[in-house]
């Protein structure tokens, strides 16, 4: 149930070693897949059946995405692992790289094989330079020594090589096409789609980008079977998922739990709201997902479909818990500052709109705003979302729209009284 997939080795003293990974059935799936080797389409069907959905934010069906790759066409193809993990509130991939790097290595090989890719790049955010990078490098070295990487792996005729790369610390390089540009050595500017990476990935060749956690879940699916995986979660929301719980809780942390677990339970695992205070709001999937009121969250289950229905999203699994001392206008200010700073500046609505939103919120926060400003803010957010080259537009607009949807009165209070309506903040 808990810690069965990505965090399976967490119970050991040195969870990152190959030996400990072996103890948890490590590389058994790879051996099974390579024995034969297994038909590529069969692997993809298995992943589809498991309803493994992308852990990078959008929750897209992994099996379906793999199916877009021209897997049997000749020529170089690539698998790209997105370890850029920059969404505020999210720190699961970092843990994965530190504590169970072999799950990712094994996942890379199997996924790469399934798509006909013989080279995999793992792109880590710049700040992962120390521990996460060193651990995954060490794991790659161990795997190569054990014969899991390189040419003709385990005599199967299958080749796969994996390289770890470090970015320079830009959030936008987590957007998959920005990431591909960055790998090519260019500015991390997201591309227009189509063409999609499966047609035009890196160096003009097909590539598929998956999140670290997505890929690290693959060996378990293949080892324990799609049915087992699916049963861990819910229909259409298979498996367990890592959630990073931060904010006003007693024991923040990263938890691997089955998809569909009630939020209430997860909150309990994190020790509940600090100082026994009242839950006010929760960002359920990283700051780009709209925040939801606490009461609503207490009724919700943690899976993709439930959160989408509540007009938010599971996103990257970064939960930010806020108690009743929280000033939602200030939260909005902080979040908008992040997106303002991280916009790549390529397309007009995002380049110009993120700064504008931030300044309007600041004006309101400073007690100098008007009712028109609230409308302006709402309009600006609407003018960005849906009009940009990549989903950064939505990522910057949704949190503002979300907070306005549920806490507009807090903005109005600022306009009326020039200060926060939240006692502790005022």
């Amino acid at each position: 149930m808990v810690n069965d997939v990505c965090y399976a080795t967490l119970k050991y003293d040195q969870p990152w070693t190959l030996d400990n990974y072996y103890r948890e059935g490590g590389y058994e799936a790879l051996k099974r897949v390579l024995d034969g080797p297994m038909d590529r389409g069969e692997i993809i069907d298995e992943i589809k059946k498991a309803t493994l959905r992308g852990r990078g934010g959008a929750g897209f069906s992994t099996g379906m995405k793999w199916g877009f790759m021209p897997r049997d066409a000749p020529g170089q193809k690539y698998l790209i692992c997105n370890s850029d993990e920059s969404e505020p509130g999210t720190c699961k991939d970092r843990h994965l790289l530190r504590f169970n790097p072999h799950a990712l290595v094994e996942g890379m090989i199997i996924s790469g094989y399934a798509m006909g890719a013989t080279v995999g790049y793992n792109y880590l955010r710049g700040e992962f330079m120390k521990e996460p990078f060193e651990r995954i490098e060490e794991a790659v070295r161990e795997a190569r020594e054990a014969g899991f990487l390189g040419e003709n792996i385990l005599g199967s005729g299958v080749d796969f090589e994996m390289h770890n790369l470090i970015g320079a610390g830009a959030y936008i390089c987590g957007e998959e096409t920005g990431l591909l540009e960055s790998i090519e050595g260019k500015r991390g500017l997201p591309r227009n789609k189509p063409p999609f990476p499966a047609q035009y990935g890196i160096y003009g060749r097909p590539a598929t980008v998956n999140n670290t956690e997505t890929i690290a879940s693959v060996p378990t699916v293949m080892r324990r079977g799609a049915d087992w995986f699916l049963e861990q979660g819910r229909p259409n929301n298979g498996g367990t998922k890592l959630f990073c719980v931060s904010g006003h809780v007693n024991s923040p942390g990263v938890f691997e739990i089955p998809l569909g677990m009630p939020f209430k339970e997860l909150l309990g695992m994190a020790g509940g709201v600090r100082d026994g205070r009242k839950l006010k709001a929760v960002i359920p999937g990283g700051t780009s997902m709209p925040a939801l009121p606490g009461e609503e969250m207490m009724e919700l289950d943690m899976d993709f479909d439930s959160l989408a229905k509540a007009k938010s999203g599971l996103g990257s699994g970064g939960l930010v818990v806020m108690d009743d001392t929280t000033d939602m206008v200030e939260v909005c200010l902080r979040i908008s500052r992040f997106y303002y700073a991280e916009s790549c500046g390529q397309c007009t609505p995002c380049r110009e709109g993120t700064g504008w939103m931030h300044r309007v919120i600041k004006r309101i926060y400073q007690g100098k705003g008007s009712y028109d400003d609230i409308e302006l803010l709402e309009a600006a957010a609407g003018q960005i979302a849906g009009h940009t080259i990549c989903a950064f537009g939505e990522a910057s607009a949704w949190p503002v729209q979300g907070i306005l949807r549920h806490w507009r009165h807090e903005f109005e209070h600022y306009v009326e009284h020039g200060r926060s309506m939240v006692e502790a903040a005022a």
Partner: protein
Amino acid sequence: MSANPEQPDDQVTITIDGAEYQASKGATIIEVADANGVDIPRFCYHPKLTAPANCRMCLVDIEMNGKAAPKPMPACITAIGDGMVVRTESERAVSAQRNVMEFLLINHPLDCPICDQGGECELQDLALGYGRGISRFTERKRVVDDEDLGPLVETEMTRCIHCTRCVRFLDEIAGTSELGALHRGEHTEIGTFVGRGIHSELSGNVIDLCPVGALTNKPYRYTARAWEMLSHPTVGPHDAIGSNISLHQVRGTVKRVVPRNNEAVNETWIADRDRYSYQGIYAEDRLQEPIARDGDKWQAMDWQEALESVAGRLKEVAAQDPSQIAAWVSPSATLEEQYLLNRLMRGLGSDNVDVRLRQADTRDGDSPSPGLGMPIAATEDVDAALLVGSHTRHDQPLLNHRLRKAGLNGAHIMALDTRRHDWNYELSEELVAHPDQLARELALIAAAMAAYVGRGVVEGLHAYTGGAEPGDNHKRVAQRLVDAGSALVMSGDAVELHQGGADLRALTALIAELAGAHHGQLGTGANAFGGWIAGAVPYRGADGSPARGMSVAETIADPRRCYVVVNLEPEHDCFDGAAARRALEAAETVVVFSPYVTEAMREYADVILPIGAFGETAGTFVNAEGRWQTFAGVGRPIGEARPAWRVFRVLGNLLSLDRFEYNAPDEIHAELQGLWERQGNPSNGGWQGRPAEPWLGHGSLVRAGNTAIYGTDPLVRRGEALQRTPHAGAARPTLSPATAQQLGVNDGDWISLDQGGPSVRLQASVDDALADSTVWLPAGLEGTAGLGPVHGPINIQRT
């Protein structure tokens, strides 16, 4: 499946705003809209550049198979599909466009009243249609520091809307990648990274591309408003492309030059040389009235008096010995001017008329007609090319642009010269040889080629190869040219200037013939081909009849008593400036027709007649592909200056020559066209026409060079802004490291150079691009005027 059974497979039908259009599969919505006059607002899109879809101004509503797209899509990159329905005016589309416009304007200074782009600004225009009356943005606007991009392009980067057209132009067309985006988000700035400016020979195009007033024309800035100028179509006066341009003028004064679109010639681009040289029209040394020498003094005259005096002098020499008169004519003079001068000279009884000022070697007599031997536009589809003695990038910038396209598409573009050049794309092969060895290199390529195509031994080739065997590089060049479906073998400016140029031309022709390639020969000037057509060459009349006059080179080597000099400065424009000047100084009579008057002219001339400069004269240029392009004059020439054709016409009358009653240049044009059409396609030159004996070479330290890009003619040399670019200014004699070491010269040393005459002092450069024992020193740069032949022996002394 096609909606319409009649429809060809590669066609689809789409509906835009209720009207149906057929278009090719793979086209984008904006292409179909543009082709059919449907307006879609845009900033970043440009048909000649890749589309980043970053401005988001072109968002439109799309429906496919009855299903509406979830969000508006950028028309500039969205490919059409059969049955697609596009709405550019739906509420959602228009609101998306308005919203983008609002974003673009929030940080734009809106300083239109003081902005040069005002009145022709894409942002201003679209803001009228899509902007709000009152801004909702009350924050402080972004201010961006400006960068000095050099003397040609002015920046006001606060106005930039980050469309990246300029960046993409320099990446994709100019190939120099001199601009990029720095920083990110709202702080994104367009800049050069290193503060070194923009040096592409095509840099001015970013001004036309910039939709706002961020990049503007520096010399033109603040001198006129777009709406007060009249536009006059004309043709670029500096190279063999004949780029189509417009002069923008106010009351007869040219304020700026912009390109006109002509896909067959210059597409939408022009070279900086064509854009900025107009400043030369207003140079301080423009001659205002006819002047004549009177002892030691110069006397102003009226036209009648001046022309009568000229006619008298010419008649006098002609009466004694007409072959003592020689006429040197600019290869950038108009067809009409060249033709009338030719007729004047022949009327006087002399065949000594020549436009080939830079042709050092005339042993090949009726050397091949200049020209490209193929359409300019087709050069972008060649599979291989060999450029001999041609720094095409500077000599013919827009031909280089086409060849670059071919090269980027995988064609083998190859070169042979006395140095490697600064290309803006990678050549497949760049052979470098000492000037004495160029013929040998060509002969080895020809030998390799003959073997490859099974032609056996080519008669006469041994004299050039000396029995040496072709190397792998010669074989590669040969094979690529032969294997190419379409190939071009072309000689350039440096071949003209070469003392053994006749051998090089014959060998180039041989290679072209063996390879089945197009054969081109391009020197300097906008109308060198025209000069040949007009009969302004000593061996051929305008009707094609053979003649036996003396070339410029011959009338320098064997000076005449009387010279007629039309629109040139021999010290810069002849292959051997010093010798040309000596010949003029020694002559009894020198009549100069020139827009300018220089100290040098006052020394050698007897009468100087002011003629119209570029823009002030109607006429025709024939470009490299043989395209006749006719243009009108913009305004009256300044002062008392007159269009040269008019002056020649009056002179013809004064000399009582027949058929000189032309009323307008088109009458001259029509007459010449008639003569030309009757001649069929003249063939000439080739391997058969090679000199009897190969030129022996200098065997010593040799000066080699070409004509500097901004030194090709009197007009551009007076283009003040161009002269401040790094491509102009003081010459830097350049040596190979080995030769420099031998001579004890270091990079940056001041050295003194002479070619038998007075010496000049210049700062040396050392560059491994050079062949050994060669001093690269182009013509047309400061400090080279007193020197001898551009190709010839030279002495160097450290100072």
